[in-house]
Structure formats: structure tokens, C-alpha cells
């Protein structure tokens, strides 16, 4: 399989966060002067706001991050956007709920149980998992099935590095992931909004693809609770719901797992859930999206712009049927 580098990368080095944030401050000032005239002072709504002060001073910093050639150089969404606008129904249905209520989650101690078709099943704790491969920063587009998107500077390492350790057997065709179930830590689970635990799955070749990230942090810090602490998936060419959060169980299986949203409403959400502007959601178009922070929509890209790297995974498949 040919792995191409991200098409939109213009330099191998990503601008350091500090420099980047100052650039945004400058843009915010320059932009708001213009916008203030047009919108009579509603500047804060449509211009980027500085993010440095908004970050969590108590959060554990992750140092010596490798830069990745897979990163995009698009404008990042602010830490505030990324941590106050989340679909994480374990903490409530409103997108502001996880930011408000996820403090009840205890990401330490944490262990992940690995089972199924593999040579080394067992329970592994998060401190060890964090050390299994060098941490990288990966700046990815995130496209939600609800037609909004963000650009997020994730921290993590390739999921393949994680999965290889357990020596999956030839019978492992798929890998299934499950989120924690604990109504004290995740009070939203007292409501039967979804069938808990949240389940997701990937075909083995998708899981082993170099773009697929085991997410352990963002903005150079460990994951905030509302973003799926302490361990999650990041699968940038698929709709956001595939990137399961707060994982406690990994199982290598022979048959296609039934993921939560497919189980919930199979006419609207499938197993593959690849970002595809040609296949509309029954209730809205997937041809365009709102990048948070922008007024107008932008066109949605096939495989969320990662087609050069992943299209070959689906050669010969009818993506209209396998949505």
C-alpha cells in the first residue's frame, strides 16, 4: 500500500504554538477593527479570540512532541472551541454539557482491557501505554456527521503501534472499542440516551493505517476529560463519532462490530462513516460544512481531504451502500 504525505503540507515544520497564538492575536485585532464597522461591534462572534489564557494551567504538559508530516497547516480552532463544544452524551446531550460536567471523570488510575483474537490479552495501565511509542503532534481536520468541523492539534501515536503489541492473530479482522460505563463518573449514563457502553469499531486495515491515531492529548497537554480522557481514537477521514472516547476495552474480532450509532439508527449512520460529500445524511447535506469560527460554509472534501492516503482502502466498494 502506497502511503502518500498530506497533500496540503507546505513545510515539514509546524509553527510553534506561541508564535502561532501571537499571530492570531494580531489577526483578531486587525480583523475586529474591520468587522466592528460591519457588524456594529459584534466582533467577538466572528473573529478568532486569543487562546493562550484559556488553556488549563493544571493540566499535565506533554513535552518533546514529534512533528508529523500528516499535519495540516490550516488555522487551528481555539482551545476554548475544542473544549466547550463536544458531543459526548455520557455527560449530557448539549454540546456545552461535557465541558461543564466531565470533571466527574477520573482518568487516573485507568486501565485498558485487551481481549479477543490476539497473543497478548490483558489489562494495561495508562501510564505504560503513554510510553509505548514516541508522542507526536498531529494537526487534523475533524468533521462531525452534523456538518460542522474543527482543526485540532492532537497528541498521540499511531494506533498500529498500540495494536501490534498485542499480537493480533490472523482471525482478527476487526477491532472493537468500548467506552467506560460508570454512572458516577459519567452521569449522563443514568439516561438511556444511547445503549451504553458506547461501541465503535474499525476494519483491521483501517485500524493499522498510519493516519489512525491513538489520541492521548491535545494542544500539548493530556486530554481534557470532555475530549475523551485519557485515551481515545482519532480517525480523521471518518465522521467524528467513529473516534470513540475514554476507551476501556479493546477486542480483536472476526466479524464487523455493531457500532453504537449504527445500532441506534442504521438508516442514518453506518459502520464505515467515511466523510463523503456525495452521500447525504437523510436529514441534511454532507456536501458542505461549517468550520467553527467561519461565517460561510465550505465544501466538504472526500475522505475529509485525506483521500490520497486512504481511498485505496475502499477500492471497489460501493460507498453509497457502505456509508
Amino acid at each position, binding site marked *: 500500500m502506497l502511503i502518500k504525505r498530506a497533500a496540503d503540507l507546505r513545510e515539514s515544520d509546524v509553527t510553534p504554538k506561541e508564535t502561532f497564538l501571537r499571530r492570531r492575536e494580531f489577526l483578531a485585532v486587525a480583523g475586529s477593527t474591520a468587522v466592528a464597522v460591519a457588524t456594529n461591534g459584534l466582533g467577538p462572534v466572528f473573529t478568532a479570540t486569543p487562546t493562550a489564557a484559556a488553556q488549563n494551567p493544571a493540566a499535565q504538559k506533554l513535552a518533546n512532541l514529534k512533528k508529523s508530516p500528516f499535519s495540516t497547516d490550516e488555522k487551528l480552532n481555539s482551545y476554548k472551541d475544542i473544549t466547550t463544544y463536544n458531543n459526548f452524551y455520557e455527560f449530557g446531550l448539549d454540546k456545552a454539557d461535557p465541558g461543564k460536567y466531565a470533571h466527574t471523570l477520573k482518568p487516573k488510575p485507568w486501565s485498558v482491557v485487551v481481549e479477543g483474537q490476539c497473543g497478548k490479552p490483558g489489562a494495561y495501565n495508562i501510564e505504560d501505554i503513554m510510553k509505548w511509542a514516541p508522542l507526536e503532534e498531529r494537526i487534523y481536520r475533524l468533521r462531525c456527521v452534523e456538518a460542522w468541523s474543527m482543526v485540532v492539534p492532537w497528541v498521540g501515536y499511531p494506533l498500529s503501534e498500540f495494536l501490534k503489541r498485542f499480537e493480533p492473530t490472523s482471525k482478527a479482522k476487526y477491532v472493537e472499542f468500548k467506552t467506560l460505563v460508570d454512572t458516577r463518573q459519567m452521569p449522563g449514563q443514568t439516561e438511556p440516551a444511547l445503549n451504553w457502553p458506547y461501541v465503535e469499531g474499525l476494519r483491521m486495515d483501517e485500524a493499522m493505517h498510519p493516519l489512525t491515531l491513538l489520541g492521548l492529548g491535545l494542544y500539548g497537554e493530556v486530554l481534557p476529560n470532555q475530549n475523551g480522557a485519557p485515551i481515545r481514537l482519532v480517525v480523521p477521514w471518518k465522521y467524528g463519532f467513529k473516534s470513540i472516547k475514554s476507551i476501556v476495552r479493546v477486542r480483536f474480532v472476526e466479524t464487523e462490530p455493531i457500532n453504537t450509532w449504527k445500532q441506534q439508527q442504521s438508516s442514518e449512520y453506518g459502520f464505515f462513516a467515511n466523510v463523503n460529500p456525495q452521500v447525504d445524511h437523510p436529514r441534511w447535506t454532507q456536501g*458542505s460544512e461549517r468550520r467553527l469560527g467561519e461565517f460561510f*460554509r465550505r465544501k466538504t472534501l472526500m475522505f475529509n481531504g485525506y483521500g490520497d492516503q486512504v481511498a485505496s482502502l475502499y477500492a471497489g466498494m460501493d460507498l453509497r451502500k457502505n456509508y
Partner: protein
Amino acid sequence: MFKPVVWILCLAPLGFLIYDGFTDNLTANPIEKVTNTTGIWTLRLIVATLAITPLRGLTGVNPLVNYRRLLGLFAFFYGSIHFIIYVVTTFFVGGFSEFDASGLGADLVKRPYITAGFTAFVLMIPLAVTSTTGWIRRLGGKRWNLLHRLVYITALAGVLHYFWKVKLDATYPVYYGLAVALFLGIRVWIAYSKTQLRKS
């Protein structure tokens, strides 16, 4: 005599949105926030207009009818903002130069919740236009009343629009549906009682 109070109450949701805009409190997705807020206030105000007639009947406070037009026009006001934001921020892609008209057309026809919402909005236009005293005189009370029964369809379509939009939790749409059913039900019941009276 309470008209200034009603004006202030009806403008309050807009005021809060503007205040939140200034103070950067419209969430990470301000367009969604403004769209949802104006949408829900449209529905609330429509339900409020439907409540006037039954309330008059039950309490005998006839001057209540003086507020109905104001509430109705504010419903149309919020509905217009809601509709314009939806069109502008969904179908202008990348700027004002590219308008996706076929996308809008497809949305109106193919997506039941959009069809319902659009129906609800369009039917409010003749009601807003003919809301003046001049139009009541021109049409005559009977015909005017008949025309303004279109609001029943607006209310039902508005509830459907909300119901079909939500992803999981339909509790609130159901509450609004029950409110509309109640206020329309009272009308049916009153009309039925009148025919019974006439018979006896």
C-alpha cells in the same frame, strides 16, 4: 396598556443574543446558537398567540386579544431571522459570490424537517401582511378569520420541524406538540359545544 411590557419581553431574546455576541458567549458555534434560539422563540410566540383565544374564553378577559397581533408579528420577526440565517449560512459556500440554489431546492423538497419548517414560515407571510386594521376591514372579519386559521398549520408544521430535527431526545418537541394540541383542542371543543347548544 401592557403593550410596552410585551414589547420588552418579546425583544428580550434578541437582546440576550446581542449581549452574548458582545461578550463572546454564543458558544463555539454562534450561528447554530442564533439559529436555534430564534427558532425556538418563533415556536414559543406562535404557541402564545394560539393561547390567547382559549384564555379569553376561560377567563373572560377580552382585552387579551389586543396582544395577539403583537405576539404574532414577533413570531414572524424571529421566524424571518431564523430563515434568513439558515439560507445565508448554509447555501452561500465560501462567500457571497457562490450561492448553491440547487442545494436549497433539494433541501426544501427532500428533507421533511426543512419542508415542514419552510411551510410554517411561508404561511406566516400572508398573516403578517394582513395583520393591519386596514386589511381586516378590506377582507371583512369572516374572511380575515378564515385566512388567519393558517396559523394552525404553521403551529403544527413548526412542531414537526422541531421534532424531526432533534437527533435523540424528543422531549421538548413533544411538549410543544402537546401545548399546540391543547390549544387547538379547546377550540374544537368550544365549536362542538356551540353546535350542541344550537341543536337544543
